């Protein structure tokens, strides 16, 4: 309870009466002070009763339209105050959005219930610029008495929270035929026996066994020489090959095929780092290899790969084929020509090649992905696992890559981002989209059937589920929930 200026003014009047009564020796003035003091106490008592009753009866709610949004999105908040019985108090409720949100003013998120009102509500929009969990404070309710003598502020009501997800892929599906796999990367099974930590068993000694492998305890138990065998552990070199050509740019902002591929590649990188597995990175743009990090296990390698993956954006071809109808090929931005303009001098003619081609690109002829495998995979030694992230657009090239990698005894894992799951026109014709998905699935299975090759689909799980569900509803319309009569 807080006394207002009006209260202190009346109390001041009473004090003046007391002083004057003493100064002028007039007891009658004390009567005035008694009247004002009694009036203040009686109204404080009345206010106290009203506040305790109203705080029990009032319901203040701040509800969110959704409790999960993407970064930089808006959340609609509704603030409602209800009284089970009218009161003479004036009630003001103010929502308390979390620190870090923007887009509202105090007036925009405040409601007033004047004396006699039973309900008031307001709706406002809150902007969440950064990812994280934003917790509201309880709404602040201000109760003022009708004569303006007292004010009480109470924090009353629920304190919801909203989770703001970073912009980027979510609900990532990795699997095949609509089924998820749990671990596309994990322990490697080997058929070798040798030094290690995990015991595989004890067997009888044969003359070719080294004497140091004899297990003397087992020998004593069996009364014949026995050796103990262990599982051997091997390091498998992993090479990530990321296709970031313009074909991988399909999809909504921050949820393109490349974004999904990048997200998965980062996950695999983290797993490799946890296991201290050697891992390398080769990124392939429209004009060739844009980056390469040779497989290694040192911390700098992991950090370099992580940094490169984060910085990866779809490229645009500097030399599109003449019949390329895509607008991006024609509209590819180029660096500013040398001063004087192209073709003005021998100097500008000499520089043109450097202006038109990014300096960091290792240009290739033919399919850049295939060329990458040819030029770099053969340099890798030992057991190699090749992880290729690409789209299903260039199917012939993918087959080519797989065959070339198999020729080099590499295990190939292909992560394909089916274009049908990223195409913005996909919801328009679910039947056609499903047919495209089946076509993709045939392609994926044909890869997966090859020895030493594993092929996964990577994409937004919700879109894949929607695609399959829409297809099922069309094929079995009677299974749909019947409409109520």
């Amino acid at each position, binding site marked *: 309870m807080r006394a207002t200026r009006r209260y202190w003014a009346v109390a001041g009047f009473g004090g003046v009466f007391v002083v004057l009564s003493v100064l002028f020796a007039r007891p009658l003035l004390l009567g005035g002070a008694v*009247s004002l003091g009694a009036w203040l106490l009686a109204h404080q008592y009345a206010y106290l009763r*009203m506040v305790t009753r109203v705080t029990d009866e009032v319901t203040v709610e701040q509800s969110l339209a959704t409790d999960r949004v993407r970064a930089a999105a808006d959340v609609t908040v509704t603030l409602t105050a209800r009284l089970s019985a009218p009161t003479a108090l004036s009630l003001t409720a103010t929502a308390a959005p979390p620190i870090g949100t923007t887009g509202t003013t105090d007036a925009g998120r405040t409601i007033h219930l004047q004396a006699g009102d039973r309900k008031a509500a307001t709706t406002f929009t809150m902007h969440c610029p950064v990812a994280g969990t934003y917790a509201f404070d309880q709404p602040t309710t201000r109760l003022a008495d*009708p004569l303006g003598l007292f004010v009480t502020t109470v924090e009353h009501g629920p304190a919801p929270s909203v989770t703001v997800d970073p912009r980027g892929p979510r609900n990532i599906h990795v699997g095949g035929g609509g089924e998820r796999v749990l671990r596309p990367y994990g322990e490697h099974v080997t058929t070798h026996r040798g030094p290690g930590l995990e015991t595989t068993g004890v067997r009888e000694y044969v003359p070719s066994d080294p004497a140091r492998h004899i297990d003397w305890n087992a020998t004593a138990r069996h009364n014949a020489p026995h050796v103990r065998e262990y599982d051997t552990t091997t390091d498998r070199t992993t090479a990530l090959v990321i296709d970031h050509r313009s074909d991988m740019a399909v999809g909504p902002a921050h949820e393109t095929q490349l974004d999904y591929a990048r997200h998965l590649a980062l996950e695999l990188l983290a797993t490799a780092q946890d296991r201290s597995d050697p891992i390398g990175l080769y990124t392939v743009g429209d004009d060739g290899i844009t980056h390469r990090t040779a497989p290694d296990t040192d911390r700098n390698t992991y950090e370099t790969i992580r940094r490169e993956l984060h910085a990866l954006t779809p490229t645009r071809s500097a030399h599109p084929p003449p019949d390329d109808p895509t607008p991006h090929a024609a509209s590819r931005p180029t660096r500013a020509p040398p001063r004087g303009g192209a073709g003005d001098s021998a100097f500008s003619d000499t520089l043109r090649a450097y202006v038109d081609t990014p300096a960091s690109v290792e240009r290739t002829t033919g399919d850049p992905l295939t060329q990458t495998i040819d030029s770099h995979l053969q340099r890798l030694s030992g057991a190699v696992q090749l992880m290729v992230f690409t789209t299903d657009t260039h199917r012939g090239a993918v087959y080519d890559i797989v065959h070339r990698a198999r020729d080099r005894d590499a295990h190939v894992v292909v992560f394909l981002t089916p274009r049908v799951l990223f195409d913005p026109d996909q919801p328009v014709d679910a039947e056609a989209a499903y047919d495209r998905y089946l076509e993709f699935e045939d392609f994926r299975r044909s890869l997966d059937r090859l020895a030493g090759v594993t092929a996964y689909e990577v994409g937004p799980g919700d879109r894949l589920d929607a695609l399959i569900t829409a297809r099922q509803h069309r094929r079995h319309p009677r299974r749909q929930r019947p409409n109520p009569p």
Partner: protein
Amino acid sequence: MTASPDTIPTAIRRGPITWLGALTAAGGAILALGPPGALVAGLLAILWTRLSTVAVAAIGQLALVVLVPEHAPPARVLLIESGFIGMLAGTAYHVDAPRRTMAAVGIAVIGLTGVTWSLYRWTTSLPIGGVALAATVAIAAYGMHRYETVTLTGEKAA
């Protein structure tokens, strides 16, 4: 958009008890002072259109002390005082339980008068009476404030 609760208009609705108190105070003034009392009552009535009831009652109290002779008949002074108290009690018309609040005004008046008057009569000292009055009001007000704070602790009252 509604007005802030702090902006209470001075000419808020006046209930019948307030009017009765005002008429009683005006009648007492006329009885005690004659025509000048009617003039003072008229001036206060004009002020009442601009100022709150509490302010007018306080100004009337000052006028009473200034204009009414020190040895005026106590019955007339009491009549005027009861009129002022009636005006103040009538403001309870605006709260949720008006009768209870009016009764609270009456009880508070009797209690404070009893404390102040008895101390004044016992000590024959106006300052002690005044201090006792101020202390009683302050302690009672603080007690209610603490009671509210404790009652609303779960609601985080401020």
